[in-house]
């Protein structure tokens, strides 16, 4: 019982270390590097890395610089350097926020993402706990089915789902999205949480059982507090997935006031042949910011959920 003297978080950390990165001894040895001379290292490591970073980030820079460029500079590459902006303007962003339905789309996206994430997490916690710890007959097969469900892509589900959504009478409503997004969120969250639950020591649960706790109490008092990192990972990842979702939102929503940001920007800001690049790029920029901010706060959770989903 010496374990209990430790902080629960330490136990989780340890457990995660064992569960996730099984053969990863902490290795401070610098490897072969000392044999590489500095010029060689610059050529082989830093130069390619710089090119990678430049290519991966350039579209964002281009998006941002276009969003604040006054219209007369936008396509006039001969008089103004395209890579810089003279006298940046907030005109595009003002237009976007006050003369289009953009704020409404933003609100819809937040609402739909939060609701479907909560729904998916609620379902996934119970399912993952049942599969991993209650271990009913057929739990392994159920786990496999969950994994297969994660591999079913939205591009083959959207037609029958559109048919169902129409039949049920929730076509063109936010409810249609809130109810259909968990189809890809629940399998993902369940799979991820199964990995986390697996890493929580059995002894904790057993000692709680001996003390007379019910399954419900074990789940809410022992397992969930220890699985908080997993819940955060699954939650922010699910939120990002629903924020980025496009094909369902495009198919199930037809009226402007119910659209989400990706659909709204694409279908309403592109009018005929006149592309308002400034407004489009501001729309893309502002629509990306929430997930980027979330991401910047939780980078490690992100990486662990992404690699976790692949590695399990």
């Amino acid at each position: 019982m010496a374990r209990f003297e430790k902080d629960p978080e330490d136990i989780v950390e340890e457990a995660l270390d064992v569960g996730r990165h099984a053969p990863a001894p902490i290795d401070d040895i610098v490897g072969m590097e000392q044999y590489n001379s500095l010029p060689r290292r610059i050529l082989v490591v830093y130069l390619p890395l710089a090119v990678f970073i430049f290519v991966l980030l350039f579209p964002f820079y281009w998006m941002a610089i276009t969003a604040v460029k006054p219209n007369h500079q936008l396509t006039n590459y001969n008089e103004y350097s395209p890579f810089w902006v003279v006298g940046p303007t907030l005109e595009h962003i003002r237009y976007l926020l006050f003369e289009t339905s953009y704020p409404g789309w933003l609100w819809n996206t937040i609402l739909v993402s939060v609701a479907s994430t909560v729904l998916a997490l609620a379902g996934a916690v119970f399912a993952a706990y049942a599969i991993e710890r209650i271990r009913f007959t057929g739990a392994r097969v159920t786990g496999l089915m969950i994994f297969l469900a994660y591999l079913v892509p939205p591009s083959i589900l959207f037609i029958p789902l559109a048919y169902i959504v129409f039949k049920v009478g929730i076509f063109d409503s936010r409810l249609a999205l809130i109810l259909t997004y968990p189809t890809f969120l629940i399998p993902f969250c369940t799979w991820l949480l199964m990995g986390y639950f697996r890493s929580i020591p059995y002894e904790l649960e057993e000692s709680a059982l001996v003390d007379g706790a019910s399954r419900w109490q074990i789940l809410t008092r022992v397992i969930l507090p220890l699985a908080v990192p997993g819940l955060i990972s699954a939650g922010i990842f699910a939120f990002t997935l629903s924020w980025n979702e496009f094909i369902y939102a495009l198919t199930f929503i037809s009226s402007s006031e119910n659209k989400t940001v990706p659909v709204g920007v694409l279908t309403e800001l592109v009018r005929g042949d006149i592309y308002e690049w400034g407004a489009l790029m501001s729309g893309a920029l502002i629509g990306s910011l929430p997930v980027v901010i979330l991401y910047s706060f939780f980078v490690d959770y992100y990486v662990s959920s992404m690699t976790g989903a692949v590695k399990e």
Partner: protein
Amino acid sequence: MAETPKRANIWSRLAESRNGLGFLFMLPAAAFLLCFLTYPLGLGVWLGFTDARIGREGMFVGLDNYRWLADDSVFWLAVFNTLFYTVVASVLKFGLGLWLALLLNENLRWKTFFRAVILLPWVVPTVLSALAFWWIFDSQFSIISWVLIKWGLISAPINFLGEPWNARWSVIAANVWRGVPFVAISLLAGLQTIPQSLNEAAALDGATSWQRFRRVTLPLLTPIIAVVMTFSVLFTFTDFQLIYVLTRGGPVNATHLMATLSFQRAIPGGQLGEGAAIAVAMIPFLLAAILFSFFGLQRRKWQQGGGD
């Protein structure tokens, strides 16, 4: 309470048995997935055998949709495009992703910062980054054309999305841009589980850096490569967003993938049955990818010393 002794009894019996409790806990997720995943999957297969349209019940027409598709040159073009897109983009993503992962695995300063920055393209909504690419690939004001003209490499702007092969390569470039971070970061996680001491031992035995990569790193990385690439292939094969934003399948269907063609026929075209048939035609390819992943996972178990 006195009124419902029987009910309480059932509840407590359910809650006491392992299977009953498991059933109760599984219920919400299972019900959801059955209604909105399994049922639609079956319904999709059924719709593929009907002539359903939007707002009209379909009649069973047997294999008519598939017979129709077999004679449809646009469908076969979409199949070709999908395979071309998937194969080329996946190979590029794998090569560049592995390279980037190896670079990041070097003992760098600012490692966590680099890792965070590199994942950005993957975090930002595809549609929104695709819009940026749309602007970058503009036929008149493309920044790439402008720079190439400045350098004297070309004389007129490149028509990125207007010519069939240009358009194919442009959408592949955008897809690779978005997919490389995922492959790189996942493979990096795999690389970090390989103990340095193995590499050092090989170096002491006189192995060159290429031999160390080929004989030590790559074999240990194979299982994770199998899984990562299966995911990557699966998502590339079923891609929809990027094409829909950049080309909508044009010019002259040159970039139509099966997913975009299925959408085109089913939703704007109204032919739900035909669209569903195209979507169902994707399933054999997906099954092949999943089986590949399954055997990749099996191999991993065997490599770690588990039962065969």
